[in-house]
């Protein structure tokens, strides 16, 4: 599983290197025995620091400073222009957690993310499995599946919204002719379905690329052995390919969660604007709505702190729970 291995090592490396460079820059203060073998590769600590600097700067500007800003705003109520500020302690948090709208949004986000994650994986898996069995025009087949990824989320969102608009959308007219009362402006389920489908459609291609690569990486000898033993394609797929692709699938589950939680913002903004009555207002979209539309910066900051905690927790749980069952050896 080349893709996955590369990612694992690079993330381990990123965690390990700052520690080493720090020690080297502290010089002889650190006992050399603890520095280990790897540290001796960096004779010149400034080189290591220089190589790390771009990444650390990116982290500084796009993670540490925003995090600090969010934390500093989460415990105050503030005039948008910064003229007046009142420290309110945990009030922003207690108000949020006791508000039914926020709880609804949390439940909705969980539902949306899980459904999106599973559906995207299953559809991408089927398409990737089918890729092996497409004989003619495989390049076209792959190209068509990958197309949605090239379309900006806002543009695809507008298209989905228009196509399924109950008053003017051609697909909505078709649904009406089938006798379905399709109306995402008035039926929360329709709105949620539309947003989910748009989000899945956009992300299937991502999962698909990784799965095709993972399936291709299964050694032919193993597959042939299974075939000789009498396993048919579907059985070979389920008992040989899938387990061997497990690390990739695990990686995709994490990525799908990140996508569902944080990156569906553009689609929601264009397809439903979080409506009707908050039925597609996910946690991330709510942060934007409250912070940037309504300028309630304190509450918005508190929400992003909660969201950050959720993201950290989820990633931790996923790595703990799933990693143990994943076989990284090929």
């Amino acid at each position, binding site marked *: 599983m080349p893709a996955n291995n590369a990612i694992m090592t690079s993330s381990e490396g990123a965690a390990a290197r700052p520690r080493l460079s720090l020690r080297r820059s502290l010089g002889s203060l650190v006992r050399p025995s603890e520095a280990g073998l790897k540290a001796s590769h960096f004779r010149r600590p400034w080189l290591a620091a220089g190589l790390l600097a771009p990444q650390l700067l990116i982290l500084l500007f796009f993670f540490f400073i925003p995090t600090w800003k969010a934390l500093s705003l989460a415990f105050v*109520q*503030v*005039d*948008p*222009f*910064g*003229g*007046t500020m*009142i420290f309110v302690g945990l009030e922003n948090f207690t108000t949020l957690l006791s508000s039914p*709208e926020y709880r609804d949004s949390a439940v909705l986000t969980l539902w949306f993310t899980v459904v999106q994650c599973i559906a995207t994986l299953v559809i991408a898996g089927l398409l990737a499995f089918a890729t092996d069995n497409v004989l003619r025009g495989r390049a076209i087949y792959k190209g068509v599946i990958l197309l949605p990824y090239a379309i900006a989320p806002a543009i695809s969102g*507008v298209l*989905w*919204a*228009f*196509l*399924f*608009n*109950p*008053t*003017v*959308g051609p697909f909505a007219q078709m649904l009406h002719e089938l006798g379905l009362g399709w109306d*995402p*402006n*008035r*039926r*929360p389920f329709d709105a949620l379905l539309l947003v989910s489908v748009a989000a899945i459609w956009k992300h299937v291609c991502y999962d698909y690329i990784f799965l095709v690569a993972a399936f291709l990486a299964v050694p032919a000898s193993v597959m042939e052995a299974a075939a000789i033993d009498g396993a048919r394609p579907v059985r070979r797929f389920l008992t040989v390919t899938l387990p061997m692709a497990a690390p990739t699938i695990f990686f995709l589950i994490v990525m799908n969660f990140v996508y569902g939680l944080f990156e569906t913002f553009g689609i929601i903004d*264009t*397809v*439903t*604007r979080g*409506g*009707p*009555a*908050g*039925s597609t207002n996910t946690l991330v979209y709510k942060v934007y*709505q409250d912070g*940037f*539309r*309504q*300028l*309630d910066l304190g509450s918005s900051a508190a929400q992003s702190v909660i969201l950050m905690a959720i993201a950290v927790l989820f990633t931790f749980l996923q790595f703990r729970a799933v990693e143990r069952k994943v076989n990284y050896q090929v």
Partner: protein
Amino acid sequence: MASTYVKSITGLLTAGALLMGATGAHAADRVKIEWWYAISGKLGDTVQQLISDFNKSQDKYEIVGTFKGNYEETMAAMVAAYRVNQQPAILQSAERGFMTMLNSGAIIPVDQLMTKQGYKTDWNDFIKPVAGFYIVNGKPAALPFNSSTPILWYNADAFKAAGFDAPSDTWQGLEKQLYALKEKKITDCSMALPGDFQWSLIENYSAINNYPFATKANGYAGLDTEFVYNKTGVVGQVARLKKWVDDGVLKIAGQGVAPISLFTSGTCATIINSTASHSGVEADAKFKWSAAVMPHEEGADVRNGTIGGASLWAVKGKSEEVQAGVAAFFNFVAQPATQEWWSKATGYVPVTNAAYQKMKSEGYFKDHPTREIAIEQLSRGEPTDNSRGFRFGNHNQSTAILIEEIQAVWTGKKTPQEALDSSVKRGNEILRQYEKLHAGK
């Protein structure tokens, strides 16, 4: 290698500097004044025309106008810019953001600016509903710029086919007409719900029928105001709209299509939308259309509607010469000739009596009768505490809540009374939060 590289870079820089010098020769001694505005489409083109007219009219200042998205996006951009001292000199801000701007500490009241820069503006000449909104303690805080009010647009062909000359002036009469349009199969969509329906069908409805929207004269008399619209005719209005939506008489445009385009394309026979739709409707509607004042309840004590649109704010933290330029531009905008041109080009209300009288005496309204409807609606009856306007802190937030709660009525999750009770309760929390933050202002 290195030296040739350095040489070519210096060469490029010199060339660039020369070019800058050549093009900047005229503009170099002009003071650049940044203006962030929030209207787009045909209205945006008109704004650019206004800017270029001003820039041509004198050679001291140059207004640089930038479209920053809709009103909310422009405000968010302003907030972000102000915190890092990158704010523009002029900001166009919607009536809903009035309190936020007024108490922001980021603005120079327009009257103060004009007096300091030696301009004499006759604030008494601004038409009553406009002045009533922007004047605080006898002095205007911002320059009224694009002022509008919602009016009832209708497809005259469709109305004629159904046997009506014009829309009824009461909601009860209009209801019968809209249902007749549908029953006679003249249209499948009798009315389109505007995107800013809370402004037209709720707030203006409340003002026109002289219902209190909130205590303390709708917020004019203090920050300790409380919403009360869950105890007035607004509840019945929401119930009526819900019935229309359920019966397919009133259509919600939703995302992906602008509600006004449902009207101009002929899909929907009526819409209650801003008078500023004039330029768009005139260009796009391929049928005989007309407009009328918004309906009222039968037997209501009918009053004026309230204004929407936006005003221009002079932003703090700019040099003396930039401020002088802002004042010069404001003076240009307030001229009757500019007002007249702007109103004709856009459909916005002429905000000064001078401009209005000029247009009237020219016979402009005889040729364009629908252009006068907004003024007629804005000056119906003597303004009361219920109809003067709305002054709520963080009005954007309570508006978003109101919209969300009314959407819950469309979906059937809540009854009109439940939704408005909840909307008032949540809205009052916003008002208390604002009051706490701005105590003593």
